[in-house]
């Protein structure tokens, strides 16, 4: 079950013992009773009827019945690598990280170096706030089992699956690499000053200004066939630096994406290739804004619209989903 519900409807599910992953405005989540749920703050969603922003409803995803047991833990910045250590031997882990925090930055920059991170499914999202509330309210996460909230730690639910069922994480990316210049960096980071364009060292901000880059198109890297976006946050002419919504990494070739005219059609085309019903799904606030997804549908792939999607690592402008497969 994945649906957008009233507080009262979610409360009834919790009281009935449903195991839930919740996304909603902080004021709504704070009204819920303790129970088998974890949640994160965000008021944007893709519902069955299409994209919407609401502070009146909560998006609830029930843990699939194939989940036998689960544990929940909080992780601060130093504890983050333990997420992988704590992952169940047979199951999946679902993490929510509050945006604009050290935990958010550290996870994004370092998760690929956590030993064994790709061996077991790790999915999740970055919590946020209404866009007009950035700087006024803080994104948060909550463990419904204890009622504990955090604005600087990640909450993770480690779920065990019954035998003969396995979780598979996938992504739907409306973007592909263009045929333009290849951009590389010699150190990882969200903020880049100098980079290499086709091997030649340049100031990245000057290069972006000269080539009119810095709008809605992400840089795209090809990870052995998976298109991975890094979205541009700002081009700082004064500082001569470029900020991104996810880190750039050395030894990865980035190119500007091919423009997407119709996001809804692009998602529909890519989603059509997936022959499975998703158990979980989340999309990006930048797709919602740039792609004008309000009122537009993305098939059965409903869920929160987030400040970052997690499929092993932090992604941008991408739909992330999980399906269960019989093995």
């Amino acid at each position, binding site marked *: 079950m994945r649906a957008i519900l009233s507080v009262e409807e979610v409360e009834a599910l919790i009281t009935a013992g449903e195991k839930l992953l919740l996304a909603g405005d902080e004021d709504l989540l704070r009204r819920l009773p303790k129970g088998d749920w974890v949640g994160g703050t965000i008021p944007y969603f893709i519902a069955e009827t299409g994209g919407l922003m609401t502070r009146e409803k909560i998006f609830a995803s029930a843990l699939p019945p194939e989940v036998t047991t689960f544990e929940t833990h909080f992780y601060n910045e130093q504890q983050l690598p333990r997420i992988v250590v704590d992952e169940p031997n047979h199951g999946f882990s679902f993490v929510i990280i509050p945006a604009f925090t050290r935990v958010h930055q550290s996870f994004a920059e370092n998760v*690929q170096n956590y030993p*064994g991170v*790709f*061996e*077991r*499914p790790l999915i999740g999202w970055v919590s946020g706030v209404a866009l007009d509330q950035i700087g006024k309210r803080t994104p948060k996460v909550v463990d419904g089992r204890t009622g504990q909230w955090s604005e600087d730690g990640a909450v993770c639910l480690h779920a065990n699956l019954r035998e003969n069922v*396995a979780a*598979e*994480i*996938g*992504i739907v990316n409306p973007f592909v690499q263009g045929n333009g210049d290849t951009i590389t960096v010699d150190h990882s980071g969200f903020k880049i000053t100098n980079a290499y364009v086709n091997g030649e060292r340049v100031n990245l901000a000057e290069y972006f200004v000269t080539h009119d880059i810095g709008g809605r198109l992400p840089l795209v890297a090809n*990870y*052995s*066939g*998976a298109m991975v976006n890094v979205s541009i946050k700002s081009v700082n002419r004064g500082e001569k630096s470029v900020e991104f919504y996810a880190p750039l990494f050395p*030894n*990865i070739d980035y190119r500007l994406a091919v423009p997407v005219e119709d996001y809804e059609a692009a998602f529909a085309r890519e989603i059509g290739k997936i022959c499975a019903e998703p158990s979980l799904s989340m999309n990006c606030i930048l797709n919602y804004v740039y792609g004008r997804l309000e009122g537009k549908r993305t098939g059965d792939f409903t869920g929160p619209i987030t400040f970052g999607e997690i*499929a*092993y*690592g932090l992604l941008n402008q991408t739909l992330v989903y999980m399906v269960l*497969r019989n*093995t």
Partner: protein
Amino acid sequence: MLPPKTHPKWKELVCGKLKVTFTLLATKFFVTRVTGRAKIDPSMENINRLIDEAYAFFKKNEKLAQKDIQAIFGQEPK
């Protein structure tokens, strides 16, 4: 059953010399990481360590990654 770590395809995989199409997202991310590390440090010691990692990854995901294993080793891995 996975081929032993001495199978030459393991080394080709971690050194980025295999041109195959992978299916599983985890495989795509994993292969990108190990091939990147092999480029940074191509010593035999590091390559062997990366082969150990690759073996552990596919052992853990042997069922879900069956298509990828077949893409690497052929239809009947030995």
